């Protein structure tokens, strides 16, 4: 990166145009909730094992910073009975744990997707209003 670009960024940062701490915290909080939604959607139509889920989520830019984050989420989703798992043999090595939605998970995901659509639609509307001003 050009030194002038770095200097401009630092100037913006320290002159108050970017509140880096707030933005970073907001991104982290937003990512936490969205990640669970994304994981549930990834296994909505097919059973996947952990690494396959991670590969799917890699396609969503900026969603997964630390790929290991997925595994506590999968454990918690199982504990909440939204997801179930089964071990299946793999030709490439040890058995793999495949995850799929439970009926409760399907119903919960449907509701989450509806809330997500309403929220993002609403925020987009607000952003549209802002840009119109």
């Amino acid at each position, binding site marked *: 990166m050009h030194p002038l670009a770095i200097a401009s960024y630092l100037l913006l940062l320290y002159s108050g145009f970017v509140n880096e701490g707030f933005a970073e915290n907001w991104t*982290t909080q937003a*990512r*936490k909730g969205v*990640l*669970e939604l994304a994981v549930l959607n990834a296994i909505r139509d097919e059973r996947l*094992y*952990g*690494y396959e889920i*991670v590969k799917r989520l890699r396609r969503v830019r900026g969603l997964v*910073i*630390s*790929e*290991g*984050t*997925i*595994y*506590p*989420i*999968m*454990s*918690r989703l*199982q*504990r909440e009975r939204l997801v179930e798992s089964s071990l299946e043999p793999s030709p*490439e*090595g*040890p058995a*793999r*744990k495949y995850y799929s939605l439970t009926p409760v998970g399907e119903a919960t995901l449907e509701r989450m997707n509806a809330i997500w659509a309403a929220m993002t639609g609403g925020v987009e509307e607000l952003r549209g209003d802002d840009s119109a001003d």
Partner: protein
Amino acid sequence: MIALTDRARDHLERYLDEVRRVAAAGGDVDADDVVAGVREHVEAELADEDPGAPITAERLDQVLERLGTPGRWEGEPRNAGAEAAQPREAHTALIAVIALGLVGLLLATFERPVPGIALLAAGGAVARVALMAGDRASSELGELVLRTYWTLTALAVLVLLLAAPAVAVWSSAQIGGFLDGLANPSAPPIPGTRDPSYWRWITGLVAASTAAWWTVLGLAGVKWRPFANRLVGPALVQLSAASVRGLIACGVFLILPSLWMLLT
């Protein structure tokens, strides 16, 4: 099962130990389940590598880097709930550790070594309890408690090891003077702490205790490394195979001179 070099396997096991610790601290996930998931991920990602050559530590580290530091996983419930439950007992324990440590340090360094060392040991026990409380709610606080304990103990050992020769040299001069004055029956007796053999005994005791602790910890680490990591305080350091061997070697090396100091 993928083939790993010894160094890579060591890296992987240390990483999985850390995953287990963080997951267990969260409380609302199954730590074994999370560890199994991460292990499967690593094996799946490395399964396409050349089966003839074992995976090197450098290649493994690339995968582990993408998995990220377990303590910073954003979905980790421990981070989300940490602020909600600050354990009062851990705060109290911190004060207790500092108090016990300071009093123990003073006693161990000067007139009363045995109760001083006992107080330092009590500080260690309190630190462990506090860390267990911290594991459930705030590992940062537990880490602070344990770090305080280790610092005070290290200070006590350092002061004893440095003070012993200095006092011994100084008191030798006193003894010399005393010996010269043996003919004079009115010469004052040498107080206990000015006697070189007293300091020799204290130094030997501290060194022997340290050596025994290192050896026991190292031997525990050979067979039950996660348990040994919990003993040493996983918030501070994760024992590797090399550090376990190092602990045993240092322990055995230190125990010989310390026994010699104690017994001769």
